[in-house]
């Protein structure tokens, strides 16, 4: 009996093995997918079907765009997306397959529309009792694809800024968007969805079916086109669940191996993009340096979160004998922490375990992953442009230290570039800290937040609010889900945080891309700081950690640190 019960591997060994599988598979996809993506975004030839679609859309695929034109495309397309998803929700009762559900309220519809267009997928609602199949697939699933393609496009535009010389242009947004969807996301999704179905993820239009349970009770078994949405939810680092329990729901994530597959899907594109960067700037080593920084932070973060959950801090956790509250038996602690680390270190925000019930330091790691700006390896596209902006800051700091003119990849980092990069790293902390502070500083809002929204009173309740704004401003979408966020304050404030947290950085990144593209390349001299060596990787990690720690340490001390140390 004992032999059977204790046949599971020691937790750290299974963590190591899972990590090893990730390294091997992602090492392979990094090469293959990275090279494929490079061809996709640099190729001059269009597929026949693409030419047809360009004609339908009214786009000249050979027209190169300046950064303002590229940005106009991003913003116009996103605006139309918000309006469409909002509209679809408001007319839900008249749509087919609405499952008899009413239209969500106006603030909630706004919040959800913004949430899916900004690649956040924060959900202030419980999906199975709020949204029918038409809104899910025509509204949300479509945004899962296109918001991901927009993210990749912006990252590629920034890379072109480094690669181009003395041009005013950074590519064509509509071409990048269509190719991203058609050549990258769609084929992987079709294959991935079918594999997920084989694992038990459902794909039907049955609605709810009533079952008579073994003991004679009744149970309503849900249906839905889940697999098709699940795969792009992961691949596009979106994270919005078909069901309230998200990837903890057995119909979204039925087994140990689907869990690993979903983790791989989240990481595939963010891990491949540094290779695209290396290829396009003509020096693969630059890509490896960026990837190394991402990898070191990811592994450290996973190790710390796993340590915290296995140690099992908290009085309730200790009474239970382990941190299994909010976790599924089939995943266990390690399967949950690997998923949670991946989900918060990318911009996915899917959960296969409830972060609100994590130990104080485990929850702290999820928060930190988002607070460093989700760049280890980050969301699709946003991870790469995020870490490249930090690299610019790192080059600048190194330049100040040794008195060299800061350059990165042969481009001078002047006053304009540093201004844009500095603004970039200020946006999300400002949104997070302001949103959290206002939630408690305005008396009427504070009363509502404390009485209606907060689920766990005291310090942990403060962490719930901090987590919500951190998640929204960084476009993650995970939550300390005890928080009731379907209130006028949170739907509006988090909606604004998601919008500004997505599009202000995009404006700055595209401006940066335009400014870099306009420059000529300065030749490498003895005085040039090499940006492909371990020394620079260390510097990059140092800047990431220091910038985060300085900004967020005080607020973390009020929340998870206080809870964990008390």
């Amino acid at each position: 009996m004992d032999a059977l019960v204790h046949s599971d591997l020691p937790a750290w060994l299974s963590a190591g093995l899972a990590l090893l599988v990730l390294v091997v598979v992602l090492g392979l996809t990094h090469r293959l997918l990275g090279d494929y993506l490079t061809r996709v975004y640099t190729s001059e030839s269009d597929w026949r079907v693409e030419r047809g679609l360009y004609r339908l859309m009214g786009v000249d695929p050979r027209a190169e765009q300046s950064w303002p034109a590229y940005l106009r495309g991003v913003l116009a397309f996103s605006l139309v997306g918000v309006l469409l998803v909002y509209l679809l929700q408001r007319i839900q009762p008249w749509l087919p397959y609405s499952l008899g559900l009413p239209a969500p309220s106006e603030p909630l519809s706004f919040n959800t529309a913004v949430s899916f267009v900004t690649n956040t997928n924060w959900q202030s609602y419980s999906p199975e009792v709020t949204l029918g199949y038409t809104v899910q697939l025509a509204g949300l699933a479509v945004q899962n694809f296109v918001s991901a393609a927009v993210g990749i496009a912006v990252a590629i535009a920034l890379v072109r800024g480094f690669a181009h010389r003395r041009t005013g242009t950074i590519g064509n947004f509509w071409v990048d968007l269509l190719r991203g969807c058609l050549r990258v996301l769609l084929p992987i999704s079709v294959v991935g969805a079918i594999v997920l179905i084989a694992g038990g993820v459902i794909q039907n239009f049955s609605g709810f079916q009533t079952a008579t349970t073994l003991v004679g009770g009744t149970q309503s078994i849900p249906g839905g086109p889940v697999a098709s949405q699940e795969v792009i939810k992961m691949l596009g680092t979106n994270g919005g669940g078909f069901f309230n329990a998200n990837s903890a729901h057995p119909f979204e994530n039925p087994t140990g191996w689907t869990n690993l597959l979903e983790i791989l899907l989240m990481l595939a594109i963010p891990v491949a993009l540094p290779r695209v960067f290396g290829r396009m700037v003509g020096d693969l080593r630059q890509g490896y340096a960026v990837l190394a920084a991402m990898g070191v932070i990811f592994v450290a973060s996973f190790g710390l979160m796993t340590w915290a959950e296995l140690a099992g801090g908290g009085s309730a956790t200790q009474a239970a004998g382990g941190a299994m509250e909010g976790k599924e038996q089939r995943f266990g602690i390690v399967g949950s922490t690997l998923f949670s680390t991946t989900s918060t270190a990318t911009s996915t925000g899917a959960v296969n375990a409830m972060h609100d019930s994590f130990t104080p330091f485990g929850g702290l790691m999820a928060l930190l992953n988002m607070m460093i700006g989700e760049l280890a390896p980050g969301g699709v596209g946003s991870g790469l442009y995020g870490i490249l902006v930090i690299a610019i800051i790192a080059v600048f700091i190194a330049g100040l230290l040794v008195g060299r003119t800061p350059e990165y990849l042969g481009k001078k980092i002047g006053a304009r570039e540093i201004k844009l990069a500095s603004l970039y790293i200020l946006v999300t902390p400002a949104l997070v800290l302001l949103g959290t502070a206002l939630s408690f500083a305005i008396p009427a809002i504070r009363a509502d937040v404390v009485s209606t929204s907060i689920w766990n009173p005291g310090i942990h309740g403060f962490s719930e609010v901090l987590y919500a704004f951190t998640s929204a401003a960084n476009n993650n979408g995970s939550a300390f889900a005890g928080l009731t966020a379907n209130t006028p304050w949170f739907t509006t404030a988090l909606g604004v945080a998601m919008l500004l947290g997505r599009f202000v950085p995009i404006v700055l990144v595209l401006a940066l891309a335009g400014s870099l593209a306009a420059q000529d390349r300065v030749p490498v001299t003895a005085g040039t700081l090499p940006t492909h060596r371990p020394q620079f990787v260390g510097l990059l990690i140092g800047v990431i950690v220091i910038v985060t720690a300085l900004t967020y340490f005080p607020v973390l001390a009020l929340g998870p640190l206080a809870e964990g140390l008390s």
Partner: protein
Amino acid sequence: MNTSTRTTARTLGVAVRAMVVFTLLLGVAYTAVVTGVGQLLMPAQANGSLVRAADGSLTGSTLIGQSFTTAKGEPLAQWFQSRPSAAGETGYDAGASSGSNLGPNSGDLEKAVRERRAQIAAFNRVDPAEVPVDAVTASGSGLDPDISPAYALLQVERVAAARDLPAATVRALVEKHIQGPDLGFLGQSTVDVLELNSALAKLTR
């Protein structure tokens, strides 16, 4: 001003047409293809791994946990019990998947855990220290179909006594239903409670 308005209008026009194209392609066509392939090649999985009784009526899904309690929520001794659940008012409401979201220092959770431990120990006549962690904690989905082998084996004597079966027979059935982690290291060993209880019902007959 005039040209910039025109440029903006033209960009918005492209955006609207693009959104229509993507909605048809990625919302409609893509979903249709995946649904078609799933229903054609793997209908059992695509439809929810459903379990049907001998008369064809729906009993549930092997992937979705169930309660084995009276309507009032009291555990029935003749069935293996699932984990605690926070889905819906009474637990295992598959239309309301949810975890408890109670924090690690929650007084309510600590109290609930202690009560569950005492109840399970008394119900199965074991030492409270023997009750495993999954038995006293609610899952993330509230629909966890599984329990740990330890919790299943702990219930053997009670179930066997309630059904008037030899404990060895019930134990052998449990051991047959222990599923190791995928590839030996992904996740933990599990026992699917609905599958186990369904097999148990057949055993009695």
